[in-house]
């Protein structure tokens, strides 16, 4: 999810940190390095560290994800639309898709089978669309609870 938001927002890490300040999450996420360390709990990453993420940290990451998708909603919607009408707006989808792949190559362990699945064209499209849809459905005031439920159900 965060990687998708980062694909849309070129200054993703900076925005995540700014949002954590705005949401008064400084106690849990005091700096960019903490956010980076938490994101390294993802086993697909090259720099994966098993750090046993705490519940407050998990909640904080969900809160900033929801807040960021709220800001990026118009862009998320445009990307979803571009895939619905591929003839008209294929440039938007291609740009998004290429940047997403670049970020995967840069950050993820491409030898992993799960990452290879992510790079596979057909499966990749489905994963991206579903992730964008989840993000777009969680922009309401109760979005935090919704996203938490979606993630726990995955």
């Amino acid at each position, binding site marked *: 999810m965060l990687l998708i938001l980062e694909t849309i927002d070129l200054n993703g890490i900076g925005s995540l940190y700014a949002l954590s300040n705005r949401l008064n999450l400084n106690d849990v996420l005091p700096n960019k390095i903490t956010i980076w360390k938490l994101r390294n709990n993802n086993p697909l990453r090259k720099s994966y560290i098993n750090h046993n993420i705490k519940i407050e940290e998990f909640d904080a990451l969900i809160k900033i994800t929801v807040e960021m998708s709220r800001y990026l909603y118009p862009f998320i919607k445009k990307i979803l639309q571009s895939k*619905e009408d591929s003839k008209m707006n294929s440039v938007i989808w291609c740009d998004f898709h290429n940047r997403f792949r670049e970020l995967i190559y840069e950050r993820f362990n491409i030898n992993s089978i799960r990452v290879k699945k992510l790079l596979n064209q057909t499966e990749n499209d489905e994963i991206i669309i579903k992730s964008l849809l989840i993000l777009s*459905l969680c922009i309401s005031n109760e979005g935090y609870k919704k996203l938490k*439920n979606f993630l726990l159900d995955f």
Partner: protein
Amino acid sequence: MLQNRLSFHQSSVSLEIIGLPDHSNNEDKDQISIISDWKLNIIDKPLIEGKIDHLAQIMYAFYTYSNLLITNETPIYESNLIDIKADNLYIHNVVLKSSKPDVKPLIIKIGNSLLSDIINCFDQLNESSKVRIKKSGFFNNIPKKVRFPLTSKVKFLNIFLPPIISICSIVLFSSTLIYLYNPLENKEKNELIIPR
């Protein structure tokens, strides 16, 4: 009496709720508790309107369908008022059936972007303090699995897992002790040491 109107907007979708406050509950003038009409306006699509019962059913259908879509289950929702099916990953077919006879069903094709707009409009309505929807019928019948699938699973595990683990560990521990300590053998040994 002048009716209250409240609108909820999300990009290309707007939802208008028309109704009255419930004066018997001393509600504010701008509150809506008795919904008489509602209109769902989607840009470039026909206007959808109806009574409160229809709104509840349609909201339930969209929420259930979006949950199915995300949780990898076959995304199909069918009822006597509305059917929603996926054409493919990007386009969804909404069929609205009229309760009046001789009226052909209305078929609308919506993409993921419109689907999220519609659901966000419904979210705004649910979260609004100015509209009170009586969730008597459909919302209480939402299957628990659709509402909070894993939360309930986690709660179930939290309740039953600790006692099960403790009972298993006690049984394991006591069975090993029983294996180590054989009272019959001990008795025989004692008999050997002190012959009668």
